[in-house]
Structure formats: C-alpha cells, structure tokens
C-alpha cells in the first residue's frame, strides 16, 4: 500500500456535509451575548424570538411554504418519527394502515416496525431494480383505512429520485391518507417546492445542506392535524415542546438561504461530477456495477459495486489513502446484514457486500475526481489480487 496523501478528500456528503463558514458565523452570537430564551419577555428574549422567526422564514422560503408550517425538531429522525407516530395515533379512529417502501431510511422503517407492534398495519412497497416505487403499486395498496403514505424524495444510498408529485396525486385521488416525504437529501441540489409537489408533510435537516447537526424541520401543511411527539411548554405552536435551539435554528436558516440561492448551480455541478466520476471508473476498472438509476439520480450520489472487493475493506483502504467514503456492506453494520436498499433492488449478497458510496458536495473539485479514480484503480486491483471470489463475484470451485 502507498503512503497517505497530505490532503484528505471528503466524499461522504450524503452522510453529512461540512458546515459552510457563513453558517457558522451566523450562529456564533447565539452561543455568546445573544443567549436568550425566545419565550422570555425581556429584550434578550425578544432578540432570540426575532432570530428564530427570521430563520423560520428562510426555511419556509426554501420550501415555498408558509412560515407557520415549519416546525423545528432535533433531527430528520425526529421529524420522521413525529409524522409516523403522530399521524398513526391521531387518526387511529379513521384507520390503522400506513404505506411506505422498502428503501426508506432506517428511522422510517424502525418507527413502522414499532407501530406494527402497537397494533398498526404497515405495507412496505417493493421497488424496481433502479429503486423506483411504482404509482400503480401504491394505488393498489391504498385502502379506506389508509391514514398515511410516506415515500422518500431521494434515496440516501443509491440516489433514486421518486416521482413524488405523482405518488402524492395517486394518494390524494384514491384515499384520505396524508402524504409525507423525507427530503433530507434534496435541498441545495434539487427543487423542493411543497406546493408544486402537492404533499402534506416533508422532513428536512440542516446537516445535509452545510448546516449544523442536531437540528431538523418538519413542514406540515396548515390544515394537517397530527399529535405531537413531545409534550411540554407548547413551543413551536404546541407541535414540538422544548426550548428552541436558537443557535442551530439560526444556522439552519442561513443554510436554507444559501441552498435556495444556489440549488440550480449546485445541482448541475454535482450531476456533472457524478457523471464524470462514474464514466471514468467504468472506463478504467472492469467488473463494476452501478447501483441505483442510470440517470437522473440525486446530484452527487454514486453507488458502485466492485465485484470481488468487500466494501468495508475498500472504504478503509481508501481512508488510509486520504479519501473518505461509505459502504452498504454488512461488515460495517452491527447486525452484519448487507444494506436493505441494495437487497430491495435485487442485489445478491456478494454484490451488496461490495458496494461503495461516493457522494460529492459543493466543496469537492475536479482534481478530487482525478485523484480518486487513480487511487481506486490501485486499491481495487490490490484487493482483487487477494480476493477469494472469481471475476463474476462467485465462490467458484
């Protein structure tokens, strides 16, 4: 193995993004002088209150929603739990059926499993080999007692962009269910317009768009009424109690402002980068499978299986060479099961265990691509020289 290069390349932006320096700057005063509680009557409290209001306006602007349709939460995980549990419990007299799909983030799937234990019924839709949910399948599963449909906007592992507008139309045209989408991966690289999409609820967080971790948001259309997850002092219009996390909310506002301004340019830049990277890899390395849609995919997302090369081993070899990536390999997870997303699109265990996710962000450059392809070519060749699988990724004789 070669020596570590000085400069590290971070290409794990679907996991989290570095903070934009402007975001950090916007947050700084609220860790110091402007420490007030937005619920206090005094001047310092009012300053905090104004700042939260402004930030809410910026998040609303990003989604083209109304200000009071934005609820700040602690994370996308919390927003998703709020939607699922809040809807299930508030509408249980109407029905106990929820529909989602097999490629959702773990927080949706785990919350659904828990709801099943509480007596609710959940349908997990299949996806096709590129990861798409079919509107026809959804239509077939909708029932009189379906109260919620939750389908993610873009997949965090394989970059599939779901036909949300169509899925929402099918839902509303054939049932009384609410339609929710987890859009955590999208802002800043795609258009996310809640009116145009025709959805009832949407999940968002700041740390996938160059904002801080530990802050999320839920867009909830004005006339949608669901139970809160956290009861208490009635903050966030009673929808989410707990003293507002002022500095993080302010940072989220700043990140939204930047994302709204730059999404078109960023979307194009990231798409060009992932296309170029995929093409170069396919030109230079044999036996590589692309996971997820050919195109279009979530800007910046790449998911490849290098046949015969185990994913965790490749991630750690790349890390040693200064390149930070991710894998859907089981060996990186507690339960030693390969990615549920790769399984859902029909990948066999060897292919699923050989996956590498590269996700570009706005701080990556063209030079990064060149260096990554060179290093990948070497490390894949080296790991293939010791693999026990044959060229097709089979055990052989």
């Amino acid at each position, binding site marked *: *193995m070669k020596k570590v290069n000085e400069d590290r390349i971070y290409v794990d932006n679907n996991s989290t993004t570095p903070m934009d320096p402007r975001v950090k700057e916007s947050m700084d005063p609220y860790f110091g002088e402007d420490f007030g509680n937005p619920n206090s009557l005094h001047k310092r409290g009012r300053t905090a209150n104004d700042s939260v209001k402004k930030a809410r306006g910026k998040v609303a602007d990003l989604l083209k929603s109304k200000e009071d349709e934005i609820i700040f939460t602690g994370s996308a995980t919390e927003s998703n739990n709020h939607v699922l549990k809040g809807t299930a419990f508030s509408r249980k007299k109407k029905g106990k059926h929820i529909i989602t799909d097999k490629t959702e983030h773990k927080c949706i799937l785990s919350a659904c499993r828990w709801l099943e234990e509480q007596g609710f019924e959940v349908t997990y839709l299949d996806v096709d080999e590129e990861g798409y949910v079919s509107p026809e399948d959804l239509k077939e599963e909708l029932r009189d007692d379906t109260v919620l449909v939750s389908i993610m906007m873009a997949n965090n592992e394989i970059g599939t962009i779901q036909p949300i507008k169509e899925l929402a139309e099918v839902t509303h045209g054939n049932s009384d269910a609410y339609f929710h989408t987890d859009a955590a991966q999208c802002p800043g690289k795609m258009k996310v317009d809640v009116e145009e999409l025709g959805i009832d609820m949407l999940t968002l967080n700041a740390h996938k768009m160059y904002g801080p971790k530990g802050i999320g948001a839920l867009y909830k259309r004005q006339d949608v009424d669901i139970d809160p997850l956290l009861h208490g002092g009635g903050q966030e219009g009673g929808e989410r109690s707990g003293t507002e996390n002022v500095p993080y909310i302010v940072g989220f506002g700043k990140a939204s402002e930047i994302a709204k301004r730059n999404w078109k340019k960023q979307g194009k830049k990231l798409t060009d980068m992932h296309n170029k990277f995929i093409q170069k890899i396919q030109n230079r390395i044999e036996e590589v499978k692309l996971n997820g849609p050919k195109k279009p995919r979530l800007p910046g997302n790449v998911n490849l299986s290098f046949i*015969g*090369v*185990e*994913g*965790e*081993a490749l991630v*750690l*070899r790349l890390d*040693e060479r200064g390149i930070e990536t991710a894998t859907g*390999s*089981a*060996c*990186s997870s*507690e339960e*030693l099961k*390969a990615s549920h997303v790769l399984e859902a699109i*029909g*990948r*066999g*265990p*060897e*292919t699923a*265990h050989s996956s590498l996710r590269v996700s570009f962000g706005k701080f990556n450059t063209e030079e990064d691509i060149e260096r990554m392809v060179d290093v990948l070519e070497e490390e894949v060749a080296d790991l293939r*020289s*010791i*693999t*026990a*699988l044959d060229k097709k990724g089979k*055990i052989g004789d």
Partner: protein
Amino acid sequence: MYTKEVMEHFKNPSNMGEMKDPDVTSKVGNPACGDVMRIYLKVGKRDGEKYIKDIKFKTFGCASAIATSSVTTEMAMGKTLEEAESIEEKEISEELGGLPKIKMHCSSLSANGLHEAIYQYKKKEGLDISEDLKKKHKIAQKTLERTKEMRRKHGLDEE
C-alpha cells in the same frame, strides 16, 4: 475500532495470493455475511513429522477478515500439522490485540479455513483424522451449504 495490529495486517497482509501446485486447498465462509476464504497448503516432512512448508490465502472480506487470514497463515507457517490443527480462534484474535465483538466471527473463519485445509490434506493422503478435526470439518461445510441455500431462497443465482 481496529487495533494497530489489525490495521498493519490489513494494509500489508502476509502470505497472500494464489499458490502454484499446492498439495491442497480449502474454501470456507459465507458470502451472505461478506466473508469467503481460501487456504493453499504445501506440506513437507521434517524429522519424520509432516509440517506446513508453505501456506497462502485469498480472502473476500472486511479488514478484520483479511487481517485474521494474514495472521493465521503466519501462525501456521512451519508448524507440524498437529500443532496447526490446534490453533484456535481465540489465539488468532489475541495475536491481533483483540477484535471488535461483532468481528469475532472473522477469527473463526480463518481458524476454519486452516483446519479445513489440514482435514482435506489428511483425507487425501489417507492419514488418521481426529474426532476434533472431523467436527471442525463439519462446521466449515455447514457455512458453505447455508450460503447456497440462502442464494436459492432469494432466487439470486442468475445475478
């Protein structure tokens, strides 16, 4: 997550790659869990005792699977067959300064690989096989069968 020893073996594994004209090869593991290992053996005779003259491995697996393969071959090299047969997974993980709990199966994979190779050699040469080694052989066979079964169940053979 990993010790310095694991990372060293992972970055620069010993005795890796295919062997020309081995006396025997073994294959163990379960790709559904992300590990498959092959061991190649050359056996020699020294002072009237059979010993491991050369050993190599090929492994599909995570960093700890590669590291345990590497250290196992180092531990077995030059040992008599009886000595090598008694190398257990615990010693392998200790040699690496310990493995994360969820990776302990990697050390059993390499122990299996080594034991299975010795079993195959003894079988081929018509040598006495201890009850203990027979048991180890059965375990190795089971993991491979489980894999085939799983592939059939998921209808994955055409991929």
